[in-house]
């Protein structure tokens, strides 16, 4: 099931510092909720393991993360796919853009992700909320790592449903 989410956060650091942190696997590991490992696996490529906990559900996702469309220090696209065993899979990407802003740097992101398997089959009611929660958690941690900031907005768009027609 698709998740489309966009948002922005103003970070208390200059663009170069934010950019550096966005490319630092150690920082990303700390900020990604439940992340257990985040290791370089080639140029602009990483391997990651993250534990996802949603209420009683516990799943460990293993996968790859790639950085593409790199335009330092302005923007990149971070994308990945992870396998969560019986829980299913998740894949997707985010276009991330940095702009100078009052008091630091504005980070604007636009996420498109899909989840499949049991998570979608059994947990569709929660997918959007969990995605937003994780995005908020990531940026809260990231802002903390950068040295402060505020989440301006996170918006989740309703997933579009193809067939069968409950509306």
């Amino acid at each position: 099931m698709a998740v489309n989410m966009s948002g922005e956060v103003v970070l208390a650091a200059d663009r170069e510092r934010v950019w550096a942190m966005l490319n630092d696997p150690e920082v990303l590991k700390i900020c990604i909720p439940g992340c257990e490992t985040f290791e370089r696996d080639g140029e602009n490529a990483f391997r990651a393991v993250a534990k996802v906990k949603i209420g009683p559900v516990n799943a460990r996702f293993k996968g790859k993360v790639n950085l593409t469309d790199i335009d330092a220090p302005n923007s990149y696209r971070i994308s990945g796919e992870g396998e969560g065993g019986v829980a299913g899979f998740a894949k997707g990407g985010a276009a991330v853009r940095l702009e100078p802003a009052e008091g630091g740097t504005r980070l604007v992101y636009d996420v498109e992700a899909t989840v499949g398997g049991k998570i979608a089959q059994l947990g569709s009611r929660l997918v959007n909320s969990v995605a937003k929660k994780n995005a908020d958690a990531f940026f809260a941690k990231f802002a903390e790592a950068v040295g402060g900031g505020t989440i301006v907005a996170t918006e989740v768009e309703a997933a579009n449903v193809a067939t069968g027609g409950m509306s």
Partner: protein
Amino acid sequence: MTSTGIGAPVRRREDFRFITGSGQYVDDISRPGQAYAVFVRSPHAHAIIKNIDLSAARSAPGVLGIFTGNDLAADKIGGLICGWMIHSKDGSPMKVGPHPALATEKVRYVGDHVAVVIAESLNQARDAAELVAVDYETLPAAVDVAAAQNPGQPQIHAEAPNNTVYEWHLGDKEAVDAAFAQAAHVTKLELVNNRLIPNAMEPRAAIGEYDRGQDSYTLYTTSQNPHVARLVLSAFVGIAPEHKLRVIAPDVGGGFGSKIFIYAEETVCVWAARKVGRPVKWTADRTEAFLADAHGRDHVTTAELAVDGSGKMLGLRVKTKANLGAYLSTFSSSVPTYLYAPLLSGQYDIPAIYCEVDGVYTNTAPVDAYRGAGRPEATFVVERLVEVAARELGRDPAEFRMQNFIRSFPHQTPVIMTYDIGDYPTCMSKALELADYANFAERKAESERKGLLRGIGFSAYIEACGIAPSKAVGSLGAGVGLWESAEVRVNPVGTVEVLTGSHSHGQGHETTFAQLVSHRLGIPIDQISIIHGDTDKVQMGMGTYGSRSGAVGMSAISKALDKVVAKATKVAARCMEVPEETVDFNDGVFSARGTNKSMAFGEVALQAYVAHKFDSSEIEPGLKEGSFYDPKNFTFPAGVHIAEVEIDPETGVTRIDRWTAVDDFGTIINPMIVEGQVHGGIAQGVGQAMLEGAVYDASGQLLTASYMDYCMPRADDLPSFNVAMTNTPCPSNPLGIKGCGEAGAIAAPPALINAITNALGHENIAMPATPQAIWRAAQSSMRKMAAE
């Protein structure tokens, strides 16, 4: 009428075992040494299988075997088939991609079968299945039936360009164009018939077994038609020749169409039993049932009705895209074609009808027959159009229907069917009376005083049951004949065993079929047993679906009983030493006219077996007769359902206040059972209209894969139903039976949507009409009213 004969509300003989927990469903059966199968299923809607790594799984504890599509291919096990050939308008045969039981190169829907793991215990099989590592290259998915044929959509099967299986049509396009050219009024609707997931309460299950000594297989399976399963598994899949494959469908917990089909799981279980040398059992969990049982409905339709200045219907034009899913299931091709378009005349005299249907592949579960199969879709089109036309013309919807009802029979429609008999105005009048239509306006005013919206909706449905005769269906592309078989075995002391090719999975055949025998032979019902569901006992049969067991299955028994009585009459005549033509048979007694001689049925049976009193060169000993009965025509049950609803416009919550059903099923064997069939059908129709809908997201993930999200009708969603009957006996079979199993599911959806739209004053409501959809429509109606 005897207390157990035709027409009596005999309490069901099968119930004792079910109310005491003594039924034997497939999962209740435990075979010595049985192992457990778990299927590895695709989490992707569309992907290339690049590699399957079984090494870790193979070394997991308890694993007896792991197989993939390549193993099936190596054993020359063929794919699953679709048994009905449809030809496109241009004469070309439908375009069908292969349907391997275990996918080989590609997976095509979420839940598609990739591998099977067989282990000592179910948990071990599950553990090992998690270790099967499948490397997928995911592909974009074509999910939306309305768009799947568009250029640039992902191609699901190379054999079917643009995902088009067929572009079929029926009727006279020019005549319809001419009718529309003359029309004073045209009503046009865009309709979606929502996708449903059947959800028989017993999930599908199978146990395959191989006997090395006999070189033969046994398959226990949750089937509505075990003989067809054997035929397909033998002749097409190539498991074993028919005489080496026994198929048993024991107690089956509901089917509703979904257990007609021959699926991958039973195919693999019976094949793998030989590979691992152990019985192999598989039972679906509910999520698997959601993912991989054949779904139902899923049409997108544009429909137009042309009416002249007096309100007379002139023509009907229908264009439908039918979602067939990722593979063609056993009878899927026929459902949106020959089970759909021929019903588009409804109960109305419509001179010209033209229907086009595109059968479309999508990356979703296969779609096939579900209770009603094509006929609910047709009835929804006709009865929504008729209701809306009446409203647009300012006509009372009941009276508008009355004006257009067919009144003389036989009636040839422009879409194949010859309706043999019916009395539609009587049904309507009776329904109007029972529904207290006359006082509806008062009730509506009363609701309004409480701030609630009340609406009433009609559905005058027709269905065609007992698809027949075989020669005709063969000419339409069916791969099988649609007759039924029966064998009546009279035992020497006069008890009777009836072997039938029909299969009961809730319909109560053990009772109704025995009622027929009791009625005809005049013997108590407890001396009769009905045997079905085992290919080693019953020689051949076509099974139970399409409301055919009464009209076709019981007619076969009736024919066999004719032969039994004829032979017994001969035996009785010899025993009583009277001419055969003077012997009458009534209430279980053979009596010689003009004498005081008589013999009870049991005595004659004994004499037939001892063969002491007749010349065996003239009369063969024994009393056992069979029949293969092929009906002359379909049967045409019809009726009127009236739904009345009350809507809370503030929340969209809709309460069904009244439901009136008047049905004409011809001869009724057991009114209690017939009413039960109507109740269940209505509930499923209400489910379709208000509660149920399969939802796939754009990537092909099924979001309604459990009862948390797929809304099953529950007791508090439904009212009690007011059910009544009229009766015009069917002239096309010896018993006058028409068939009642699907009527409710066919009639209910348009009745309810017509009631809801009547309450809202707003036609644009899709099924399922959820509280949210109704609330939104109510808001827009109220805004409209405020503006006026």
